[in-house]
């Protein structure tokens, strides 16, 4: 039994490392590639020559930062922070690539951290928009409470809370407001729902729902 547990733990940790590596690689390579393709030529602006890569990224027109309330089953509080990167923009749609880091706390149940990425399509309707997203991520959940296990002496001892790794496919539907063109706002506000799955959880894909309420902010104002 002990041997099997050790093997299981090893394979779980290996799987966890692989997922983190793949998502991380995807994020880094993707952002770098797209960023380098879409940068404003720094030679055009002498001021920007002095800026570092980080500043150029932050002030890039295609980059917006986002902050959301992420309420697992609505009222279990969480936050997600992320980057919204515009991949393509037409009059009728903006295709964007989002990456988010977040977590939530479900008291007496579990605390979870996640890193996820996804593609979305934002459809403008006058000053408003609807946003459909599809993505995948890595989630790590921890039992929210003291854990006991059998000690080697046969009694009870507190167990280290290593948590459990999960694959986290997700989809969300948001509606939002981006301000009128006249207002030239650097931010948009949105509200909507995300549905995501937690796998493997007792060998199933456990569904979750979470409302998202938040905003995106661009340090570089949009060109009209």
């Amino acid at each position: 039994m002990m041997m099997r547990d050790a093997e299981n733990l090893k394979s779980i940790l290996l799987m966890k490392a692989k997922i983190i590596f793949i998502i991380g690689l995807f994020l880094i390579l993707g952002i770098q590639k797209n960023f380098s393709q879409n940068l404003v030529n720094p030679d055009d602006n002498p001021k920007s020559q002095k800026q570092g890569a980080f500043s150029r990224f932050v002030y890039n027109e295609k980059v917006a930062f986002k902050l959301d309330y992420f309420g697992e089953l609505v009222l279990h509080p969480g936050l997600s922070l992320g980057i919204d990167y515009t991949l393509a923009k037409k009059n009728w749609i903006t295709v964007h690539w989002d990456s988010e880091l977040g977590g939530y706390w479900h008291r007496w149940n579990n605390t979870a951290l996640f890193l996820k990425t996804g593609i979305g399509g934002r459809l403008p309707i006058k000053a408003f928009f609807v946003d459909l997203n599809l993505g995948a991520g890595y989630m790590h959940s921890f039992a929210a409470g003291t854990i006991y296990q059998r000690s080697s002496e046969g009694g009870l001892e507190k167990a280290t809370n290593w948590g459990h790794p999960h694959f986290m496919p997700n989809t969300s539907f948001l509606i939002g407001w981006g301000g009128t063109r006249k207002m030239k706002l650097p931010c948009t506000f949105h509200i909507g729902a995300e549905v995501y799955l937690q796998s493997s959880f007792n060998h199933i894909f456990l569904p979750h729902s979470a409302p998202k309420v938040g905003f995106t902010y661009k340090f570089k104002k949009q060109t009209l």
Partner: protein
Amino acid sequence: MRNLIIGFMLSFSFLMISCEKENFYDGDHFFVKCAGAEMPVYIKGNIESKTFILFVHGGPGSNASLVSFLPVAKELENDYAFVYWDQRGSGLSQGNPDPSTFTVEQFVEDLDLVIEGIKLRHNNPRIVIYGVSWGGALGSAYLSTGNYQDKVTGFICMNSGHNLLEGIPKSVVFVKEYAQIQIDKGIDVDYWIEARDWCATVPDMTIKENYFKYDAYLSNTNAYQYDPNQVLQGPEVSAMGVMSSYMSLAIFFNGQYLAERFNILELNLSPQMAKIKIPSLVIWGRHDGVNTIEMGFDAYNSIGGPDFADKEMVILENSAHLAHLEEQELFKNAFKQFVNGL
């Protein structure tokens, strides 16, 4: 614009603070970890009474978490501390336990960890195991293993499935008789003729496929609820309560994987129940079609063996498998009388 921002901030603040709800978190909780499962234990009610009723849920694959919202449980919590433990692969239990851990022995080990956890956190209180259906079987298995019964003060065994090897064929007879009554009444005649004739073949109920077929027929009888027209008091928890308590959607999705893989169709604990020598109460619904009244007598006779006197049996005459909901007052009286007499 300013109003929009203020509105947004107010909504955000409301959502952030609204999770702080009153009494869902009164009491104690912890997890026990064993063989791939992390199982939650919630303790509610009168902890000061120093009498802890450890509820062992049925199934396998059902849950205790939702039972904590039953009015009948809430009432009993006024007198005792109630311990709600979700078994591996069930309810709000977490982890990914391997199917090879779905054995009676493993569940007994899990139950012992729960008991050790209660004793550790609450300074050795009196513990009474209250097991319903599969929970009654698990309680019986636990108490007849080694010296585990020394850790427990009393045992309430309700409508238990402690001997399915002999019990399920009796339930098949129940289905057959129920089918005949429906045929005589002219209700869904074709369906019930098919059910009656299949039951008449005396199928081997240790074969899973046969069990699932019988179970489908059984669920259409009054095996669970004697009077289908009686309105039972189910768990009282609002949507807002679910959203602001420790509940999660796992309550609806866990259990199925376990139930399909945990084969207890050949379970027969009757012989080993003679080892149980602690005060015991057997409660049974007279019309239980799942674990029939004959199995109630079997449980009563098996506990402690024929010479053991510290046991009693209460039959709820107008109930079936959900006797604790069908005749709540009688159930509560019997329950309290037994526990207070320990």
